């Protein structure tokens, strides 16, 4: 529970002739985290012979899936017939590519016709036709836009031209026809007037009136669009018919391909292969037994001792009810193999803090129902919603203690939040002192085990001395206890000296941090107060409207609903974030560094999470 699963490092040596069966079984068992073999004295093992086939089939399947735009989703398990995979995929691919080719052809035609329509618009504007732009021996032509004043410049070099103009925003559209001999000079003027040509190539060679040509092109567009709709329908049909089969094939091929390629992580000699893996200690026996069975005895195992510097993969090991809270541990960082797994503690304190902040029977009930429904709707976020459901229950319990329902004090609770602010703050600070010191004690235990008692004393226990010293000073200066302040100073001083010995002189500036961390727990009171005051304000406003007259009653109801929904939204977000923060910043920093690598047994797909 408080530690990740114990791991064993296993060396496996087997006959290459049984490689196929062994990799298959390894994949099914999902308990071996394979350590990649580095090329050295022994080379790498070759992948299985089927590797190329499965890889290329996988690429093909993925390309069809991407063409068909099949969305990933839950599918029913199907049996895949390996032998006819090629035929099946080829057949689907051909149908898809045919439909896509028709789609592309018609889409190109539509684009071309739209382009011509644009050109025709410009020509109509300038009162010319495509026929005017056919290639002539003596005449050259331009069509485009120029800056104003172009004709003035043109007239300076020649008057022998024909021009049609039309205004276009800040510039002028022109169709210009002139003698081919003067082409260079005219182009020089055009350049000076920032001529930008329209591309009329698509319409060149067309004959007839603009109206007629436009009708032709519009007819082409309509035909192309009808064809495109048809192709889309064909693709849609293909998607519904083959979509789930394709996803199933992809999954099957991914699995097969992974199995065929895993030997690349093994080492090999001519006749044998060998691999190293981490296996949870309690499952070593099973792995050995299962592999021995499929290898027909041609296999040998050796357990290796774990070394201190080794990065052993981490498998969190918590009871089923607490698994959901592993979400928070992962969000921060997985513990290292030798580290303490804080999931259990968080599973206890997170709902406690959440409930303390959002203590209201009605709010708890509403959030409970909302998160319960969300959990059904989004199974991927199950872990997260489980945490929030537990927290909602805590919220109801605290609500009962406070006597609060929707911000109204329906019965006299143990604590009345709007009056007993200082009591709330004291409770929050005591909770802070307990959690911070618990963190220090866990840290102390871990350092003690790792580096000896002296280190634990300097690094962790020194803080507790400082805290005790400060408390003694407070109590003695205020005459709460019959003790001279000097005693407090001595304990405080010992703590500071120990800290300096452990962490150096610069640690002095860190001394307030432990108190700051404890005071930081005052947020438990502050966030709760904010929530309860918003609720009270909403209620006051509602009752003000309610008593104004019958006409205001509907407005009062709406105000009540919106106000409380807003407060619930805020009330879920703020307490959960602040509760997480108290754990990550104030608690974890005392004993936890994280950075462990996840235990990823061969054959296990990566888990999906919602955040």
């Amino acid at each position, binding site marked *: 529970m408080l530690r990740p699963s114990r791991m064993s490092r296993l060396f496996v040596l087997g006959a290459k002739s049984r490689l196929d069966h062994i990799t298959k079984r390894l994949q099914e068992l999902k308990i071996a985290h394979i350590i990649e073999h580095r090329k050295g004295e022994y080379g790498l093992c070759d992948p299985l012979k089927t590797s190329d086939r499965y890889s290329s089939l996988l690429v093909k399947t993925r390309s069809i899936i991407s063409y068909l735009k099949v969305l990933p989703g839950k599918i029913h398990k199907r049996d895949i017939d390996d032998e006819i995979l090629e035929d099946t995929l080829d057949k689907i691919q051909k149908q898809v590519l045919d439909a896509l080719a028709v789609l592309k052809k018609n889409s190109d035609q539509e684009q071309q016709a739209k382009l011509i329509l644009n050109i025709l618009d410009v020509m109509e504007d300038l009162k010319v036709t495509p026929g005017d732009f056919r290639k002539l021996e003596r005449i050259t032509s331009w069509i485009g836009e120029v800056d104003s004043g172009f004709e003035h410049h043109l007239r300076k070099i020649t008057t022998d031209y024909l021009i049609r103009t039309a205004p276009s925003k800040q510039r002028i559209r022109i169709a210009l026809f002139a003698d081919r001999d003067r082409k260079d000079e005219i182009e020089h003027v055009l350049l000076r007037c920032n001529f930008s040509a329209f591309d009329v190539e698509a319409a060149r060679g067309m004959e007839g009136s603009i109206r007629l040509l436009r009708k032709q092109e519009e007819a082409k567009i309509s035909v192309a669009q009808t064809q495109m709709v048809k192709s889309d329908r064909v693709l849609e049909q293909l998607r519904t018919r083959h979509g789930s089969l394709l996803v199933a094939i992809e999954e099957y091929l991914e699995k097969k391909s992974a199995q065929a390629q895993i030997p690349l992580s093994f080492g090999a000699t001519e006749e044998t292969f060998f691999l190293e893996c981490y296996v949870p200690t309690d499952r070593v026996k099973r792995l050995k037994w299962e592999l021995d069975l499929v290898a027909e005895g041609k296999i040998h195992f050796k357990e290796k001792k774990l070394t201190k510097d080794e990065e052993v993969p981490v498998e969190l090991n918590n009871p089923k009810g607490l698994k959901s809270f592993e979400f928070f541990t992962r*969000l921060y960082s997985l513990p290292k193999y030798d580290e303490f797994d804080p999931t259990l503690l968080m599973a206890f304190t997170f709902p406690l803090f959440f409930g303390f902040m959002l203590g209201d029977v009605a709010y708890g009930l509403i959030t409970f129902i909302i998160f319960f429904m969300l959990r059904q709707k989004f199974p991927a976020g199950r872990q997260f919603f489980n945490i929030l459901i537990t927290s909602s229950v805590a919220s109801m319990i605290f609500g009962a203690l406070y006597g609060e329902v929707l911000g109204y004090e329906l019965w006299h609770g143990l604590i009345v939040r709007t009056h007993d*602010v*200082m009591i709330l*703050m004291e409770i929050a600070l005591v909770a802070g002192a307990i959690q911070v010191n618990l963190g220090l004690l866990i840290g102390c235990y871990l350092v003690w085990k790792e580096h000896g008692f002296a280190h634990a004393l300097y690094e962790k226990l020194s803080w507790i001395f400082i805290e005790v010293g400060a408390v003694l000073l407070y109590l003695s200066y205020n005459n709460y206890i019959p003790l001279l302040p000097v005693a407090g100073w001595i304990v405080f001083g010992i703590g500071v000296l120990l800290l300096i010995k452990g962490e150096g002189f610069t640690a002095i500036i860190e001394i307030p941090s432990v108190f700051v961390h404890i*005071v*930081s727990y*005052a*947020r438990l009171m*502050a966030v709760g107060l904010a929530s309860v005051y918003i609720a009270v304000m909403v209620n006051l406003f509602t009752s003000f409207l309610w008593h104004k007259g019958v006409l205001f009653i509907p407005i009062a109801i709406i105000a009540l609903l919106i106000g409380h929904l807003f407060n619930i939204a805020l009330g879920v*977000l*703020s307490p959960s*974030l*602040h509760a*997480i*923060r108290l754990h*990550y*910043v104030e608690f974890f920093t005392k004993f936890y560094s994280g950075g462990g690598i996840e235990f990823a047994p061969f054959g296990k797909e990566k888990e999906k999470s919602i*955040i």
Partner: protein
Amino acid sequence: MAVETLTTGAGLLGIGAGLAIGLAAIGTGLAQQQIIAAVLGAISEDPKMFGKGLFFIVLPETLVIFGLVIALMLMGNIG
């Protein structure tokens, strides 16, 4: 009338309490402004950063909580 019974000292304490929470809130706002900008950038790059980003946004709220604690302590002295 409650106002008449207040002394100057109590009034100053009240102003102090207001300043404690007000200035702390400004500090939190300044810090959050930059964090939120960075977090939004991160989220637009990778929407999975939403959860972590949200967590970073609330980090500076400690300041305003300290402000509130001081304000409450000052207000306690008025009574």
